[in-house]
């Protein structure tokens, strides 16, 4: 057994406690591209938070649920996934119920990286020569109110300068430090070390940039397991505020090595992003019905059977052929 640090209180709690303690109205929430925690998202909706802002490289299902439920009215992202369905999300963007600023997958990740590093801005060439610098820069539904500082000055979204080093134009993007990151990880320990793997997209930077981190985990493991593969840890325990043991918290999404994407679920229950009718029925049935993820899983099994649920479990995980040993003696 590898030694524990010891002396650290457990951060294990229910999703209800984690959300009520570490989310507040008006927060900027990082709900990312991979490692989506539907359990935390649905708990935020149940607790009825208001005026949240969702950030993430791509605005995927969890942040779309926050918008659909009315908890979130502001979005900064590179990809409005909910607009794909030409339903309620697009409608709310058109009438201003959702205010938004468009970025790209890389530029949001870079802004999170700047936030993680504690720097005020980061350069990028992604938007040079595009309408992000003209039409998209300021518009009737933009987030200028969020960019007013204590002295009443409104800061720009981005700023193009001539680089002091080569004289070429370059865009400076402002840093993002979300108030809270929501994440579902493969495993964690009680003291709050969280381990995540698979395609990570912007996840590591979204977590690193956030002031608070709350994680659901498929599995709670002893700290010795964490320390046996420390390279998988994406945030050490001192950075993490709450860990919730919630198997299937990533359903109907995917989680490398654990959960396959459930491609039948929205067909079975009615895709909530295609109509308000579907949205309301989904919210009543799957968000407000079960009071936590365990009840959600029980409801799924009750409706569709354990076999269908188990069919969403990864059955061919990849194991290293020659595990890379670390050591020094």
């Amino acid at each position, binding site marked *: 057994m590898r030694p524990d640090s010891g002396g650290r209180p457990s951060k294990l709690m229910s999703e209800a406690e984690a959300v009520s303690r570490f989310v507040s109205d008006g927060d900027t929430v990082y709900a990312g*591209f*991979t490692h989506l925690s539907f359990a935390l998202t649905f708990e935020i909706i149940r607790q009825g938070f208001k005026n949240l802002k969702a950030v993430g490289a*791509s605005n*995927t299902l969890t942040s779309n649920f926050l918008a659909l439920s009315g908890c979130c009215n502001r979005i900064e*992202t*590179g*990809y*409005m996934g909910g*607009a*794909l369905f*030409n339903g309620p999300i*697009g409608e709310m*963007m*058109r009438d201003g119920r959702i205010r938004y600023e*468009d*970025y*790209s*997958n*890389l*530029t949001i*990740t*870079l802004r999170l*990286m700047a936030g993680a590093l504690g720097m005020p801005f980061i350069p*990028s*060439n*992604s*938007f*040079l*020569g*595009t*309408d*992000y610098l003209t*039409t*998209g820069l300021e*518009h*009737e*539904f933009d987030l200028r109110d969020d960019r007013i500082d204590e002295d009443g000055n409104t800061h720009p979204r981005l700023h*193009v300068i001539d680089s002091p080093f080569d004289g*070429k*134009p*370059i865009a400076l993007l402002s840093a993002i430090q979300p108030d809270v990151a929501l994440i579902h990880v493969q495993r964690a320990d009680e003291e709050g070390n969280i381990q995540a*793997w*698979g*395609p*990570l*997209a*912007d996840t*590591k*930077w979204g977590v690193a940039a956030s002031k608070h981190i709350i994680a659901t985990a498929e599995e709670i493991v002893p700290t010795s397991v964490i320390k046996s593969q420390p390279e998988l840890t994406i945030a050490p325990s001192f950075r993490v505020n709450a860990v919730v043991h919630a198997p299937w918290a990533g359903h109907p999404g*995917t*989680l*490398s*090595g654990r*959960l*396959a*994407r459930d*491609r039948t679920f*929205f067909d079975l229950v009615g895709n909530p992003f295609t109509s308000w009718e579907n949205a309301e029925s989904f919210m009543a049935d799957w968000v407000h019905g079960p009071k936590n993820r365990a009840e959600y899983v029980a409801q799924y099994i009750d409706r569709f059977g354990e076999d269908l649920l188990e069919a969403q479990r*990864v059955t061919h995980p*990849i194991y290293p052929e020659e595990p890379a040993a670390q050591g020094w003696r």
Partner: protein
Amino acid sequence: MSSGTPLVYDPIDMMCIAAARELQNDDAVLVGMGPPLLACALSKQIHAPGMTYVTESGPIDWVLDPELQAPIQIAEAKLAEGASMLGDMIDALGVIIMGGRATAAVLQSAQIDRLGNMNTMVIGDYTKFDRRLPGTGGHADSGASAQRVISTVPLEARRFKKRVDFRTTAGYIDGPGGRTNAGLNPQGPNLCITTACVFSYDTPDGGETGSCEMTLAGLFPGKYIEDITAEIPWALRISDNLREIAPPTTEELEMLNLLDRDYVHRTPGRYK
């Protein structure tokens, strides 16, 4: 399929196949969703096995699963299987794309203009839109920095615009020197591959000189110049070396249909 039977294929099949033929064994390619992903998968199976896929969520140099079913989304855990490197968005879109190390990007666009500028954001006015699209994902990032860009756009008049509704992604911007003036590197030879033809751009040096205009360079089998100009709202340049693109081979078409057996990549709006 016996050798004497004429191959049956759709225009979008030929678009994917023509795009696949443009990729080489030594390419490191940023792969966009939809037909580009299918085109790259096809290329790797048919003639460019050494090609390196770069996927923005982090899997780099992945291979297809043993059943040869092309992945659907760019954040799928499935992409980690057979990857030589599993990084994140900074590794893929940062180091490889913005760092200028991707030799190509294959990107699907809703609209494109005569200078290769692309739109994936919105149809109509930016806020009072007719149809809001998801937005750019890694499109803008890739268009800014990949060494060459191959865009796939079905040949329909509504997609070929004098001015795209929102310029998400820089092509040659406002003409010769546009990219350099904006702060970007020259880029090319860029291509736009449609459901009826292949366009190149009139610039010998990636946007420094020439008109930088979209130029009809190749016709798909059975297509005439008039079929193309009918869909293009400007006086289209036509290459002096206009060529006829070879029809799909049996091998290409069978592999395409295997990779996309559920017809997900070739049907708009089928992503779940």
